């Protein structure tokens, strides 16, 4: 079964063409251009290079977050647009889950960390078990303060293998807090790759056997919603005071 995966949740545009879990062609662009400008031209080149027809595709997998809000939406709108015309199913996976494949089969827990701005990371913990060909999620994806998260991990044992677009910059901080318990993948393995998403999508497809409705996975509320909730909470408190 031929399928395409799209990941535009970070600054990397990552595409893959794969067949039954085997990678056929991969696109990786980490340039200053936007996803919007790069995505379709890149897909077109990849399909041609693989000597495929777009109509050969039977499935599209898309990374639906967490990551850049705009990037998430571009990926989903593109996947939905393609799937709608080609009349093929969609599968959605998480960016962190895809990155867990960077640590395939390792004994260490895989800790994907993605730059979430505002001095936070999008992160989770994954474990590879010898009896299972896919990563198991140990803590739910969240937006975490780097120091707090690393200290939380310190209490858990480890060892830990870090991946993700925040990993390079955080290397010395990670080593400082976790010491020999932690290692960090080099950038070329650490950034989102079509190859990772292609694996994650294939496993999910085999498990599910059918497509699904795709919704963005943001983790965070928009700022306006956060402020409104704060205001409502304050209003509520004041009422309570009066009682």
């Amino acid at each position, binding site marked *: 079964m031929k399928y395409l995966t799209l990941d535009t949740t970070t600054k990397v545009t990552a595409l893959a063409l794969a067949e039954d879990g085997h990678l056929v062609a991969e696109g990786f662009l980490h340039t200053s251009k*936007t*996803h*919007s*400008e*790069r*995505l*379709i*031209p890149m*897909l*077109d080149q990849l399909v041609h290079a693989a000597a495929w027809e*777009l109509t050969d595709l039977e499935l599209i997998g898309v990374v639906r977050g967490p990551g850049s*809000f*705009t990037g*998430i*939406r*571009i990926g*989903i*709108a*593109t*996947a*939905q*647009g*393609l799937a*709608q*015309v*080609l009349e093929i199913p969609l599968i959605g996976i998480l960016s962190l889950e895809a990155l867990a494949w960077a640590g395939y089969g390792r004994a260490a827990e895989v800790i994907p960390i993605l730059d979430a701005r505002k001095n936070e990371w999008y992160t989770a913990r994954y474990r590879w078990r010898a009896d299972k060909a896919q990563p198991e999620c140990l803590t739910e994806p969240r937006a975490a303060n780097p120091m707090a998260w690393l200290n939380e991990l310190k209490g858990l044992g480890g060892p830990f293998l870090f991946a993700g677009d925040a990993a390079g910059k955080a290397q010395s901080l990670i080593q400082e807090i976790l010491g020999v318990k932690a290692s960090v993948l080099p950038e070329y393995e650490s950034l989102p790759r079509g190859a990772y998403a292609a694996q994650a999508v294939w496993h999910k497809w085999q498990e599910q056997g059918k497509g699904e409705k795709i*919704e*963005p996975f*943001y983790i965070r509320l*928009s*700022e*306006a*919603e956060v402020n*409104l909730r704060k205001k409502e909470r304050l209003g509520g408190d004041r009422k309570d005071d009066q009682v």
Partner: protein
Amino acid sequence: MNDIYILGIETSCDETSAAVVRNGREILSHIISSQVRTHQKYGGVVPEIASREHSLHFEPVVQTALKEAKLGFDELDGIAVTYGPGLVGSLLVGVAGAKAMAYAARVPLLGINHLEGHVYANFLEAKLKFPLLALLVSGGHTNLILFQGHGDFKVLGRTRDDAAGEALDKVARALGLGYPGGPQIQQAAAGGNPRAFEFPRAMLEPQSLDFSFSGMKSAVLNTLNSARMKGVTLEISELAASFQQAVVDVLVRKTLMALAQMPVKTVVLAGGVAANALLRQTLKEELDKREVRLVYPKPLLCTDNGAMIAAAGYYRYLRQDFAPWTLNAVPGLSLA
């Protein structure tokens, strides 16, 4: 000639819309999913929330538009999409989706300027002859535009501060009337004396076709404040009616000034504020005197909608003015 079917997509602000239009004239389907209610509790459009809503509604809106038109993607001749001006995150949902659809369906992609789209809503209503003078008034824009042919336009005047719709929104909020302001002001003004208050009508330099609404808006707010300080209660209907009259006066006067400078026999109204009854009526009376024809879209086509984008797309299709796959959202896109 074969019939030409264009799918039009609009996501530049707070409406997710898709429509299928035949030959630039005939609307076969038209779906608009409005977020107005979602944004009401924030008192205006919140960009990130708008983008999130578009992302959720885009796919079903397009699907329904095609279903109601009883057409498949293989029967379309082109896909038109707004790529600016507007909110960048919102625009990107439509642009990304439209590009993917056009690429997969092997049909041309047509990139449409949102303002151009508003004006083309008039081509869905009537057969029009160039040259046309367009008065485009919305929450984001106030422009006088001369159209000498399809794709051949020149902006004659623009607002130097608030857009007319923006001023209406702000005054509506100050009067406690809610969002969006235009329809609220119109409703509140009913029965109010439009001459109760004299608000300044900024005409700028003698020959200028530019607009300015911030002074007028401030005058209303000052009137409200000083009354409040004196403990005087003002009649909302009179304030609303007087303000509405002042806005309409400026819009009409500038349009007539432009007409006096050029041999144009048709004026078209466009944009959300074009739905305002007083504006339509006043302009109609003045234009009748000058034997100039006034055309305006029905209220539904004055709001942001996919049908106007499809109509503009049709003429772009005829000119074979196709967008590249690198098309990006341009939030500050201007008219030539």
